[in-house]
């Protein structure tokens, strides 16, 4: 007993010592700035200095129609982007999981959008979306869908959709690769048993593959939702939040307020809203994750 207790505490000390450097780094570079952001949101901080202003930043923010529009827009943008990533990713994974010639090459070819720097990929999309000379407008004009040059990023609705498509392009490969890995992790004997029992390919997908990879699907929805919510570079490079604010999501707005005109206080208030929303997401999904894990261990 005594021996056990001693080794237990020794273990604890070793563990804490090993974790300490990473923990301190994160406390200094992430945790402290988060708290400082909360504090700054109650001030009128700028490059000149700061004074405590109470809830003024929040009052101004929530009473502005523009801000409420931004919140709604963020969720709509996110909803479409995440759903498309998951659906296309799942279809892609099923296709690449098929035991056909060339699949190992295709599996590598899926990954470039994920691997290359987002910002550089977006330079390519800027060219694709070019209203006069881009290939998308070109195909549109030649097939008669468009009756003239069309700047995809110049109009409210088309810019909104265009940024979603670019975001889906960036996010899909990772979803595909993880789904694919999960599908290959499903024990083969399950399929063999089902095959012997005469289950169709369709049945095998819905009754074996899908339930087996559900934990990965939920994890990916979690991560995908959060990354999409945080998506900055794609919108910034394609539209900088325009035209007329139609692609300004919360993250873009926070950035513009804080570092566009160095109104740190106002920017911080927006950052706090982002923080709270992210925490809600995280809490919601972590709870879901815990429930799934429980379910699995009960079976």
């Amino acid at each position, binding site marked *: 007993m005594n021996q056990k207790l001693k080794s237990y505490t020794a*273990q*604890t000390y070793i563990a*804490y010592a*090993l*974790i300490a*450097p*990473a923990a301190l780094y*994160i406390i200094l*570079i*992430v945790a*402290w*700035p*988060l708290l400082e*952001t909360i504090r700054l949101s109650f001030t009128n*901080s700028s490059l000149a200095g700061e004074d405590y202003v109470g809830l003024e930043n929040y009052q101004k923010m929530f009473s502005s129609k523009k801000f409420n529009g931004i919140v709604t827009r963020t969720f709509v943008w996110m909803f479409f982007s995440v759903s498309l990533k998951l659906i296309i990713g799942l279809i*892609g994974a099923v*296709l690449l999981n098929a*035991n*056909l010639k060339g699949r190992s090459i295709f*599996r590598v*070819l*899926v*990954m*470039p959008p994920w*691997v*290359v*720097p*987002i*910002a*550089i990929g977006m*330079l*390519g999309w800027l*060219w*694709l979306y070019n209203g*006069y000379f881009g*290939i998308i407008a*070109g195909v549109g*004009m030649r097939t008669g869908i468009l009756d003239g*040059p069309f700047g995809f990023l110049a109009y409210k609705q088309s810019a909104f959709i265009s940024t979603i498509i670019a975001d889906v*392009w960036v996010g899909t490969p990772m979803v595909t690769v993880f789904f694919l*890995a999960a599908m*290959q*992790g499903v024990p083969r004997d399950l399929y*063999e048993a089902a*095959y012997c029992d005469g289950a169709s390919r369709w049945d095998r997908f819905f009754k074996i593959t899908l339930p087996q990879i559900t934990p990965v699907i939920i994890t990916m929805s979690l991560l995908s939702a959060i990354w999409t*919510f*945080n998506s900055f*570079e794609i919108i910034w490079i394609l539209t900088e939040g325009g035209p007329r604010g139609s692609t300004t999501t919360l*993250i873009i707005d926070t*950035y513009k307020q804080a*570092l566009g005109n160095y109104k*740190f206080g106002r*920017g911080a208030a927006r*950052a706090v809203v*982002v*923080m709270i929303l*992210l*925490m809600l997401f*995280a809490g919601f999904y*972590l709870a879901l994750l815990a429930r799934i894990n429980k379910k699995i261990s009960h079976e």
Partner: protein
Amino acid sequence: MNKYNPFEKILIYFGIFVFMTFILLPFIEMFYASLRPLDHLFRSPYQFYSDDLSFWAYREMWNTVPMLGRYIFNSFFLASCVAILTLIFVIPAAYAYARFKFPAKNTSLYILLAINMFSGAVILIPLYKLLRTLGLLNSYQSMIIPGVAFLIPTAIWLLKSYFEKIPIDLEEAAFVDGASRVQILRHIIAPLSTPGLVVVGIYAFIGAYAQQFLFAITFNQKKEYMPIPTGLYEFIGYQSVKWNEMMAAALVGMLPVLLLFIFLQKYIVEGLTAGAVKN
């Protein structure tokens, strides 16, 4: 059971073709545009065919973007520093999470996961002020320091799962045989975890190479420290963009990561797959 009839085969290949078109079209079009003369690009509606393709833009871009070489070096340098620093912080922590039981273990793992969910944009203001106070704005450090912080959480989770796959029996057996912790680390953990370290290292490098935008445009205005993405982004602000050279430079900027990835993709894919296959 895995035989497909010809109809199914055609259907699957067609599906793959559509899927791949979506994924690869931007790259193909970027490459094609980079080979075409500028006056062919500036025709509306889009011309699908050019007869005089050349690599001229790849030579000319070094003049149009005079610091391109420097940007490429910066990107490499920044990503390497971030990856190495991340590994240094993450290896001991991941080992502790994989092997020891201690109070608040699960809670802190979840906090880590939660921290990973915060975008850099949320903490830009305090970081900006901090870096300004320390006199680190417009320097390599201004991009490295926040970069590392945002790779640590995922890297710990990834590496932890690699360490966990090393059977604990091996360590216990060695421990019973009187091996010290250092010996266990050197002779058992280190060799067995090399593939994991390689994968996590590459993950960190690619992650660091990919994230070179937000912190770079916010904390650094100096051209000589700019990584490729911000360097090229500046270049797009020019009055008329020379799209063929722009696309050429963008492709050259992607090439290092793409090559590294193609060269090492087996490790990465195996690493990811291993996590899902063997429990």
